[in-house]
């Protein structure tokens, strides 16, 4: 089942084209790594999927619902972790998560049950009453991932969630997300420029200057481009390409 279906999407800031005829699918149980240098259009694409921006050119569907026409139904299936932390530092972990649950129409009893489940899975439950301000970067990210999963989305968008984290925190998040894909059949679209976060079984999309330069399974792309690793593959599609 297609959790995300993007068809021929374009977007411009004034006269400056930021995305040019993007088509992309992410299915349940698929982890799709979106690679691109700064300015490639990754965050713009995320802003369009989450309907922070709107484009009349092309179509985005989440679990079969058009993001423009049926935005509420579509957004109900979406969990997001943005590049910048979006937790309220003055509130506790529990208060932040309860707030999110309320926005998704989850009652207090059910919310508390789900919060406990998600935080325990990320080994954060014992810190649930601490203020977010007291957490380190890695722990904040874990809380944000727990929050994004509270309403049981089918598609998880991750916009460079590991930037600025130390290696153990990064590895823990990478492992956790891949487990979610495998066990819960979650669809994941993960924007990154840290190529060591990509697993062999992931699909890859390389975005450069607003256009998709390559997309498919990692192994297929490597053999098609006759490159040996993801770093070479990335350079092959981005360095010196207008």
């Amino acid at each position, binding site marked *: 089942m297609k959790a995300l279906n993007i068809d021929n999407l374009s977007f411009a800031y004034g006269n400056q084209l930021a995305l040019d005829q993007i088509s992309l699918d992410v299915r349940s149980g698929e982890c799709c790594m979106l690679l691109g240098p700064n300015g490639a259009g990754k965050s713009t694409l995320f802003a369009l999927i989450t309907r922070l921006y709107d484009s009349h050119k092309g179509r985005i569907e989440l679990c079969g619902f058009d993001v423009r026409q049926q935005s509420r139904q579509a957004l109900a299936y979406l969990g*997001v972790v943005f590049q910048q932390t979006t937790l309220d530092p003055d509130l506790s972990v529990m208060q932040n998560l309860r707030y999110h649950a309320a926005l998704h129409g989850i009652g207090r009893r059910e919310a508390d049950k789900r919060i406990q489940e998600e935080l325990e899975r990320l080994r954060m439950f014992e810190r649930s009453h601490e203020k977010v301000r007291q957490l380190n970067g890695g722990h904040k990210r874990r809380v944000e991932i727990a929050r994004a999963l509270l309403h049981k989305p089918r598609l998880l968008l991750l916009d460079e969630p590991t930037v600025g984290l130390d290696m153990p925190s990064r590895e823990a998040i990478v492992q956790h997300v891949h487990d979610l894909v495998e066990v819960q059949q979650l669809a994941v679209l993960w924007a990154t420029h840290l190529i060591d976060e990509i697993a062999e079984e992931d699909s890859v999309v390389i975005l450069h200057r607003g256009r998709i330069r390559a997309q498919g399974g990692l192994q297929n792309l490597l053999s098609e481009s006759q490159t040996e690793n993801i770093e070479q593959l990335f350079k092959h599609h981005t360095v010196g390409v207008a």
Partner: protein
Amino acid sequence: MRVGHYALAMQGIVGRELLRFLHQRERFISALVRPLVWLFVFAAGFRAALGIAISPPYETYILYEVYITPGLLGMIQLFNGMQSSLSMVYDREMGSMRMLMVCPLPRWFLLVCKLIAGTAVSILQAYAFLLIAWLYDIQAPLAGYLYILPALLLSGLMLGALGLLLSSLIRQLENFAGVMNFVIFPLFFMSTALYPLWKIKESSQWLYWLAQYNPFSLAVEMIRFALYEQFNVFAASGVALAFLLFMSLAILGYNPSRGMMVKKTGAGSS
């Protein structure tokens, strides 16, 4: 189920705003210090300079402190509206606004929730100010403290909606200083908060017109009359109209298809 979702979201947004307010005691204190300085210092100093004649809703000569009390209530709500607006711009720059905007509820409803949350906070501040004013011997009829509640609600909504509208127009946090100079000060000083209309008319006819139809003046007059158990139809209608106008424009401003969000730079830079 859907109604329940809306109710939970409203409860969540208002609850969060109240929690933040309680956690930020300095915000509460500074919100009270400003009007109290005006009441204790400015009003005391100008008591002799500005004689206040008998004009509705007052039935006798009053002290200047009594006259400016409704204006200071308006000031609390005006600054609260701008504070909410500032926090919206901050939230947008810091990203937490995004979490609100991607939840599966209509944007107009989310903005209304934010507005109600900010208004609830401003009403708490207004009553705290009234309590201190009471102890300072500025006392209105007891029923007036009840009558004033719907007036504070409507004026809080109107000024909060103005804040929302401004937050949809401001591109960056740094631009907020301009709001102080071009919105708050003109609204406040060209109003009946500090001096009555007839006094303004004596000095300038055009200033009189501006002050008469200034939405902030209307809010202040609505509050003033309510505090003395009267309903000012003209002021209340004007405030309601201004609220509808500001709110509609704010909703338009936050609409991803038509609003200003798309035109903002920086959010989609990578």
